[in-house]
């Protein structure tokens, strides 16, 4: 007993000492120029960055929140949000896995997440240094030798200001849309990747490996640049359900590919979708755009979206360079009361540009899903080609799927193909599998995985296996 009391005492002292320090680091809710100046100062940013942010803020003030998406959510009060919060204090977090929601742990188990990672994902106060740090150091060394820069965007602003200045906001301008403008004003973290001329990045880059991956926050900003002939495969997110105190997420991702460069960007998004009534889920308003600036450049988006209460997301490609290629492969799964309005934009500007869109939407429960895609072919994009396939699968009869394909064609030498299907998860297919002795649950997972196969095979191997497991966990109990 005595020792325990001692320990409590020690901890309390430590806590008190810590609190003062932290509190000065957390902003009260509200957004004005002072807020932005505070963020910029906290990040130790140079003057030009602050001016950039303030300009974005001024533009944001003049803009209106978009309302065209097929989404329904209560109005967001932007003055009610805290735009800078320091990491949660260790004593405010669960102290061990015993304090974590057993349901969450069960999911980790099913997804096959290694034990030591579960604690970190559930937000348990683990000692800062965990096993993988040595691994990360090794990776950093290998990347450094190849000349690849991979760091947080804040670090990049300080360490590589010329590169950031040259590319930031050149793909997604500050005033591109309401959420992008907001992000430009207040972004607090994100990744920066620069792959120099002719370098093929020696490994797949994942935000997961970044030491400061924790608490990446609600306004992430990612910038990836591949110089001529460079290649990189970037993985974002994690299959494990992630909890976050922040309800609104408005990220911006910009990709730049110069001549013959190839950027492959894969996402698995599994933010908290809210409870059965949709309460407490994450609102995810993301602007992702790739610029195929160089000839024969190629940008490929692959995404598996299963989380969030609201998803508003259209990873796009600007196909400027002659013969450049844009690709979009997507699986979106919604259940409960989730709403997703997602799709892509392929803007063909250069001659001989090609794009492929494969979108698979799966809705169950009371969820609603929309595919929204634009294929725009400019007058100079002679011989441009697009292939679009969007398929929706409905599970049960209380969910919805909608498709909004838009096409704008500015010349007569282009070829567009569009295929779309909506099917209910076939009772016939289910019966067929069950009449072979396969249980209903296994049959659903088999059919759904088959439906998504074209997209899963675009994912890096490890991710694909995880994505399949994720799909099975997500759809558990969706039928019957």
């Amino acid at each position, binding site marked *: 007993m005595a020792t325990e009391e001692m320990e409590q005492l020690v901890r309390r002292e430590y806590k008190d000492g810590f609190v003062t320090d932290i509190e000065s680091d957390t902003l009260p809710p509200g957004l004005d120029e002072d807020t932005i100046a505070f963020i910029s100062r906290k990040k130790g940013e140079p003057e030009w960055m602050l001016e950039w942010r303030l300009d974005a803020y001024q533009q944001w003030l003049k803009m209106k929140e978009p309302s065209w998406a097929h989404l329904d959510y209560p109005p967001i009060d932007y003055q009610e949000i805290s735009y800078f919060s320091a990491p949660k204090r260790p004593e405010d977090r669960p102290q061990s896995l015993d304090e974590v929601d057993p349901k969450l742990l069960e999911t980790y188990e099913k997804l096959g997440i290694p034990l030591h990672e579960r604690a970190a994902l559930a937000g348990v106060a683990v000692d800062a240094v965990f096993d993988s740090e040595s691994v990360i150091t090794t990776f950093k060394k290998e990347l450094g030798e190849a000349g690849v820069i991979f760091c947080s965007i804040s670090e990049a602003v300080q360490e590589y200001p010329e590169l950031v200045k040259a590319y930031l906001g050149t793909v997604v301008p500050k005033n591109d849309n309401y959420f992008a403008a907001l992000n430009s004003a207040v972004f607090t973290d994100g990744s920066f990747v620069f792959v120099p001329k002719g370098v093929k990045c020696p490994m797949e880059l994942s935000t997961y490996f970044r030491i400061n991956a924790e608490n990446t926050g609600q306004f992430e900003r990612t910038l990836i640049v591949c110089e001529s002939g460079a290649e990189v495969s970037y993985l974002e997110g994690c299959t494990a359900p992630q909890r976050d105190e922040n309800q609104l997420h408005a990220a911006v991702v910009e990709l730049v590919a110069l001549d013959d460069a190839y950027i492959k960007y894969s996402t698995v998004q599994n933010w908290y979708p809210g409870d059965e009534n949709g309460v407490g889920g994450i609102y995810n308003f993301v602007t992702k755009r790739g610029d195929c600036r160089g000839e024969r450049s190629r940008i490929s988006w692959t995404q598996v979206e299963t989380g969030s209460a609201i998803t508003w997301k259209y990873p796009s490609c600007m196909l400027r360079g002659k013969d450049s290629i844009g690709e979009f492969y997507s699986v979106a799964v919604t259940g409960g009361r989730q709403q997703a309005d997602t799709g892509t934009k392929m803007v063909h500007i250069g001659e001989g540009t090609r794009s492929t869109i494969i979108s698979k939407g799966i809705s169950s429960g009371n969820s609603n899903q929309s595919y929204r895609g634009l294929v725009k072919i400019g007058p100079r994009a002679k011989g441009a080609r697009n292939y679009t396939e969007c398929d929706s699968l409905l599970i049960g009869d209380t969910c919805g799927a909608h498709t909004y394909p838009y096409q704008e064609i500015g010349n007569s030498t282009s070829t567009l193909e569009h295929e779309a299907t909506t099917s209910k998860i076939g009772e016939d297919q289910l019966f*067929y*599998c069950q*009449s*072979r002795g*396969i249980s209903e649950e296994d049959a659903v997972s088999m059919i759904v*995985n*088959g439906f998504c196969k074209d997209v899963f095979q675009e994912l890096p191997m490890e991710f694909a296996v995880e994505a399949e497991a994720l799909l099975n966990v997500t759809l558990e109990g969706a039928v019957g």
Partner: protein
Amino acid sequence: MLEVNDLHVSVEGNEILKGLTLTINAGEVHAIMGPNGAGKSTLSAVIAGKEGYEVTQGSILYDGRDVLEMEIEERAQAGLLLGFQYPVEIPGVKNIYLLKAALNAQRAAQGKGEIPAPEFMKLIKEKIANMKMDASFLQRAVNEGFSGGEKKRNEILQMLVLQPRLAMLDEIDSGLDIDAMRVVSDGVNSLRSEERAILLVTHYQRLLDFVVPDFVHVLVDGRIVKSGNAELARELEANGYEGIEESVA
């Protein structure tokens, strides 16, 4: 093995089967024939557990168990297997994957572990050769883009792998050319054994030249109106169903 007693079945309020009684013992091959709309396919669908069929009266017993109380997959695991007239396509799911999942589900129900991969491959290779199918079929999505004949072969392939105790084949002969008919019939005949029974549902007598049944039943308007041996099928071929209907009336 299977006892169907005074079975009445309705679909959306319309009575399709109106008191059907049938007993099938191990080692026997039964053929159910009849005009379109007589309820031939309904019988096998109800035994397999397809939704949308309401049993209003009567019973189905399989080894003394009440079939209507069993889950669909349970029936299959217990050896009641339906070969479909129109097998569905399942995009993205490899044929071999379905076969393996089905076989392992059956083994699990019997308290056995999953089949080791080499053993499974050996089994599949043998069966696919029996059905004169190319190994590439295994890697294709279930029934996707298969011709009518290929789909039917695939149904029999599943039977050969799963070795049901009662194989129910619904119009397995429809859409087959003569070569495919031979392969399919050879497959069905290879299933014949003392422990197993086969129920053929067919509109034409042609199949029964290849798979000679022990019993033939004529189903008209939801009831079996006449039973006999293989000879009955030939009579039907000669005189048509009308003759039977008249003689019954």
